[in-house]
């Protein structure tokens, strides 16, 4: 377990009754920050697990509290950064380098993993007390009463956010409403947008090539200017669903995400109609394209929120998909046909 000793964020190694335990630094260095930034951008994602096992912060002893966490480096960084004033042990589970919340969903942050990790680290020989502090967001993967029954360790669920941990300990391990509540502020929504856009990018590139190819077949020349002009409504609709809906989320006065997308789409469609003033058929096709696209992409954002339920998504998909997909396909076909017709009129 001393394989972690050589890591740059490990300050020193402490001799204990259960062997050497690495003590981690509580200040993030430039190297950590740089790496974290790259990981957020999606680069270098794979290698971001830390070795699971036992770590320490400060100069912990047999009475120091034990905090359980995942072995995703960003999670560990967020934690140690907030714990400068908290002397404790860290029990890092093997969640395959995934954060606590997602790992709990995938059942790698689990009762079984805790029980196994307790055995492997012989924690019971290190500390005198029998209490584990778990992050609250790990609770969907762990059954506290089963951990207690199997290992004798009582599980206390700490606050949602690492920054509340010092206050939590100060407060005799009691949480107030604020500490246990997950919100979804603008900041958190903005962070998710790049990821949504990366996924949308594939669709956008495919869409643009399709439009360019259609223009090419119709006009006989490959003209990217025209193709881009024809492509703008679709681009706008994707951005409406992927950017505007997440940004405006609580301000759009309906609960269904498909409807949220539809509302933003209507505003966008009005703008496009005004800017392009197309023919009637073209106008209808473009509007339907925008509405169905922005609605679909808004619906996809349910996968990133912190408050949507599976039952709700199921219901939306069941209602919206049979309507939106045919409309999307129809609008593309009508757009193409109307172009063909216009071409014949000219020639």
């Amino acid at each position: 377990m001393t394989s972690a000793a050589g890591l740059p964020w490990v300050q020193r190694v402490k001799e204990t009754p259960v062997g050497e335990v690495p003590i981690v630094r509580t200040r993030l260095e430039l190297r950590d920050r740089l790496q974290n930034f790259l990981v957020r951008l999606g680069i270098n994602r794979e290698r971001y697990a830390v070795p699971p096992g036992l770590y320490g912060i400060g100069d912990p002893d047999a009475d120091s509290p034990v905090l359980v966490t995942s072995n995703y480096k960003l999670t560990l960084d967020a934690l140690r950064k907030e714990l400068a004033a908290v002397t404790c042990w860290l029990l890092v589970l093997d969640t395959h380098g995934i954060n606590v919340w997602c790992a709990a969903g995938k059942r790698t942050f689990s009762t079984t993993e805790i029980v196994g990790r307790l055995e492997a680290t012989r924690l019971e020989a290190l500390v005198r007390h029998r209490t584990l502090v778990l992050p609250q967001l790990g609770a969907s993967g762990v059954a506290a009463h089963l951990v207690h029954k199997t290992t004798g360790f009582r599980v206390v669920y700490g606050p949602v956010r690492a920054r509340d941990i010092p206050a939590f300990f100060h407060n005799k391990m009691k949480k107030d409403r604020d500490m246990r509540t997950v919100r979804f502020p603008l900041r958190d929504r903005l962070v998710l947008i790049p990821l949504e856009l990366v996924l949308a990018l594939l669709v956008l590139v495919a869409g643009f090539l399709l439009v360019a190819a259609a223009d090419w077949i119709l006009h006989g020349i490959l003209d990217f200017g025209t193709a881009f002009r024809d492509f703008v409504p679709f681009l706008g609709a994707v951005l409406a669903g992927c950017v505007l809906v997440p940004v405006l989320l609580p301000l759009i006065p309906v609960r269904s995400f498909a409807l949220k997308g539809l509302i933003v789409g209507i505003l966008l469609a009005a703008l496009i109609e005004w800017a392009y003033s197309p023919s009637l058929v073209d106008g209808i096709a473009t509007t339907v394209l925008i509405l169905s696209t922005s609605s679909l992409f808004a619906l996809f954002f349910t996968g990133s929120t912190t408050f949507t339920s599976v039952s709700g998504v199921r219901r939306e998909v069941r209602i919206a998909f049979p309507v939106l997909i045919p409309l999307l396909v129809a609008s593309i076909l009508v757009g193409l046909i109307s172009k063909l017709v216009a071409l014949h009129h000219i020639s």
Partner: protein
Amino acid sequence: MKMRYLRNTVSLSIDRESCIGCEMCIAVCPHDVFLMEAKKVTIIDRDACMECGACARNCPVDAIRVESGTGGVIPVLEEMMKKGKAD
């Protein structure tokens, strides 16, 4: 601002008879769905529930039922296709 998803859609239910009032569900719920009332827990904000399943998993007397699962369109579509094949 507290955000809530669709009205009357989540699968959460609680058997007040067997609840022993340990408050574990309150400690793990990220959306303040429960409240203690006469030494037992009651659901006060059902629409805020995201079906994470934390409450049901940590209830020592198995008093809570919720059908939890991975949200998002792709998992839901996959699950529908699987069901479609099974039928």
